[in-house]
């Protein structure tokens, strides 16, 4: 069908995006060779470790147990910190840690790991256990793979080692290592209950604030089956049969592109990269799915659905657009989300005057460039001070960033909308864009900005007038 509307800045939608050869060595995934994963700078670094990244990817497998092998802090400081929602099982919200002590570290923690796995299997009967390496267990050379393998055989449930200790690199690398673990130990080990000719996997969508449900609803309306959720609100079993999908969509997550790429070469599943932020991107993504499923009837249905939704949305958005038009925003998110959120903001009439490209690959930067105007400032790196400077210099009205920077913005009395992991509002899909518009208006219009910027009455007067 040639009636497809080109989504702005996106390459020909008839062609799945896959430009360069996948570079195994680079961080994230398809990062261009010119820009390898930079070493974090001591004294200037921010952001999580690979273990963190691996957890982010796998924790949304809600019915599995996630056991952290190491001293307690890696688990203790991180459990229950993600806004990934579950529609049922909650075992993944339990914090499990082998909690190694001094002695365990001297004499080895493998025995403790084995006992821990047995205990969890016995008491919680999970369908699978993921075991995460951390710096210390990697440093002392624990053979986690062997312990997992042995336990798996003995207990009759998959026990999956995830080898992404913090010190191997960034959060992004951790995402990718988690993807590797899925590919090596999970995908292809099960079969769906019934065959689905129109099944699609979503890769790299974590159901933050329930966004997955929004997307699933749209897919259902179009008659597309969501075969495996990798991994938002997933059950372990559904990931085992991910190889039976007819198409993969990588949702705003470069790091898991490697997973899609390898599923293509191993199982012949085509993939594309897309986003659900903004109506245009949503429409594009649904169309791309229909196209890859290669079903004419489906394509027509998607067209009807997206047209109806877009019309309704543009009607509902009218009052918000009036307020938001011409407003300026500075955007500071992880590398990939930047470009997809820009589209959403543009649709609302907001001008992005500054954008963080800290974690972006050259390709991400290209996509950002396609979506912003020429005088947008790129913020290559640097902490909060740098972002604030941009906000001030470009006279931005609002800052859109991750929760880490929320209170930084509050100190500077800058209206703020949280776009990352910890937020509580779903911005995906057509409904999501409406919600985002409302959130932006509520934040900009809040009386606090006036109150906070006016001094106390006694500070206003120059001197007491006798």
């Amino acid at each position, binding site marked *: 069908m040639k009636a497809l509307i080109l989504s702005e800045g996106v390459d020909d939608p008839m062609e799945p995006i896959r430009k360069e050869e996948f570079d195994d060595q680079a961080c994230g995934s398809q990062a261009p060779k010119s820009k390898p994963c930079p*070493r*974090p*700078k*001591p*004294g*200037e*670094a*921010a*952001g*999580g*470790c690979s273990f*963190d990244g691996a957890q982010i990817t796998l924790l949304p497998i809600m019915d599995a147990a996630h*056991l952290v092998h190491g*001293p*307690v*802090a*890696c*688990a*203790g*400081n*991180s*459990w*229950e*910190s993600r806004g990934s929602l579950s529609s049922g099982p909650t075992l993944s919200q*339990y*914090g*499990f*840690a*082998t*909690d190694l*002590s*001094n002695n*365990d*570290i001297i004499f080895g923690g493998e025995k403790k790991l084995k*006992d*821990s796995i*047995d*205990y*969890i299997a016995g008491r919680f009967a999970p369908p699978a256990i993921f075991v995460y390496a951390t*710096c*210390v267990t990697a*440093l002392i050379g624990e053979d986690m793979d062997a312990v997992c393998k042995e336990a798996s055989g003995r207990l009759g449930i998959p026990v999956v080692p995830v080898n992404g*200790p*913090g*010190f*191997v690199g960034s959060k992004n690398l951790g995402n990718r290592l988690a993807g590797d673990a899925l590919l090596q130990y999970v995908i292809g080990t099960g079969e769906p209950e019934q065959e689905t000719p129109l099944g699609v996997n979503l890769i790299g969508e974590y159901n933050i604030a329930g966004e997955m449900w929004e997307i699933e609803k749209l897919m259902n309306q179009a008659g597309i089956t969501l075969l495996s959720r990798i991994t938002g609100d997933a059950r372990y079993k559904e990931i085992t049969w991910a190889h039976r999908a007819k198409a993969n969509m990588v949702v705003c997550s470069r790091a898991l592109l490697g997973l899609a790429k390898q599923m293509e070469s191993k199982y012949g599943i085509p993939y594309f990269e897309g986003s659900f932020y903004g109506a245009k991107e949503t429409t594009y993504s649904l169309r791309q799915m229909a196209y890859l499923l290669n079903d004419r009837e489906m394509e027509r249905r998607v067209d009807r659905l997206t047209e109806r939704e877009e019309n309704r949305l543009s009607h509902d958005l009218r009052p918000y657009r009036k307020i938001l038009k011409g407003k300026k925003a500075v955007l500071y998110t992880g590398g990939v989300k930047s470009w997809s959120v820009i589209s959403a903001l543009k649709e609302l009439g907001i001008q992005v005057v500054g954008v963080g490209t800290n974690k972006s690959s050259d390709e991400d930067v290209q996509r950002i460039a396609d979506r912003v105007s020429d005088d947008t400032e790129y913020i290559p790196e640097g*902490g*909060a*001070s740098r972002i*604030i400077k941009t906000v001030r210099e470009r006279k931005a009205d609002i800052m859109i960033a991750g*929760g*880490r920077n*929320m*209170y*930084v913005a509050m*100190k*500077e*009395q800058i209206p703020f909308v949280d776009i990352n992991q*910890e937020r509580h509002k779903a911005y995906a899909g057509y409904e999501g864009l409406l919600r985002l518009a409302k959130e932006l208006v509520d934040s900009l219009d809040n009386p606090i900005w006036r109150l*906070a910027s006016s001094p106390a009455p006694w500070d206003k007067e120059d001197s007491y007038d006798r």
Partner: protein
Amino acid sequence: MTVKRRSKPVSVNPLKIGQSLGGILAMQGCYRAMPIVHGSQGCSAFPKALLTRHFREPIAVQTSALQEMDVIFDANRNLEEAINAVLSKHRPDIIGIIGTELTDVAGVDYQSMLKSYKRERNMRGGLAFSVTLPDFRGSLESGFSVTVEAMIDELIQQAGLRGQRNVNSRQITLLPGSYLTPGDVMELKEIVSSFGFEVIALPDISTSLSGHLLTGFSPLTRGGVPLDSMLQSLQSGLTIAFGSSMERPARRLHNALGTPYKVFQSTMGLKASDELFHFLHQISGVPVPIRYCWQRENLLDCMLDAHFQFAGMSAVAALEPDHICSVSSWLEELGVEQKALVTSCETTAVAEMERDVWVGDLDDAEVLGSGADLLISSSHGMAGAERIGAAHLPAGFPIWNELGSYMNVSVGYRGAMEWTNKAGNQLMRREAEHRESSIRHR
């Protein structure tokens, strides 16, 4: 009485927060400070995120960003780079190097590295020290107190005091334990100064993490005790420590400078408050200010009103060691049955308690506290409280399910009253919910 452990190979729903986070927290109470965590990125990113979530404030912290090869070859090169970057970019007054399990297991000697760094760069005027806080020992509490101890050591060195000094008998150094909120520290400062003393809190999170706009955002800490006040604190005539974990830093001051000290182990409830006020009255000769006499009346009246609510009730608490001592003595006064007390690690204070204490996790609290009406713990205990049908009272660290918890006051008469009302209200609400659901089911 005794410290017990349930036999279980794995920690389920950890109560323990790493030591290094305690170190980072202590540094937040100093003005223009920067803790540098000597470890991999995650070891500073996780605590930063967690502290931000609890205090709803930006948190100053940096990392030496170790990667695998750095650990194996030369971890200190990273540290040097980190110190250089922090010094040239932010010019902090105070730097605290916090060693992690990673540097500990790898056997990195950053203490002597720091010493030679200071010598070579001729670093004067500022304060730079290091602590070793691997997360497989101790807990948040010990990390906090060890850091304060190291800070004090460095102050004494810096001032070059050898026993002799000008003692200011009207000045008191407060050493508030890690379980006290900024609101608590503020209350304690007010109480002590209301008896006519100059007070220097070390560290002082009451002015750094209590929420203020001051001069906007800074990558360094804003508020907190400034370095010159810290140095001045060495002239204090007395040290008052809150929480047994702060006894060691107090003893440091005593051993080096001869400053006498007093430790208040419990800070919650009528009896604990009475002790504090009586002590202050005695050492100052000043009558207890009238507002505190009123507060005492208010507390007693509130306890009378609430005793119907608490009669026959039982509670389980899972908190850091010093905190559990305090909370336990408050529960005692309310006549609440203490089904179980769970803490993150064993300390002398805990071992000397008159009740059994379990060292364990939140799962232990859930199991041992089954049937309890009230579960007192960080926000991590919320889900467990729901599972056993208990009301949940957020306390300790981290709390993310209520606004302004960092300003809660638990110390003094006012604090005891606030807690009593809050706990009573939670129980009342739970009762109402039960009633409602039983009506619906009929």
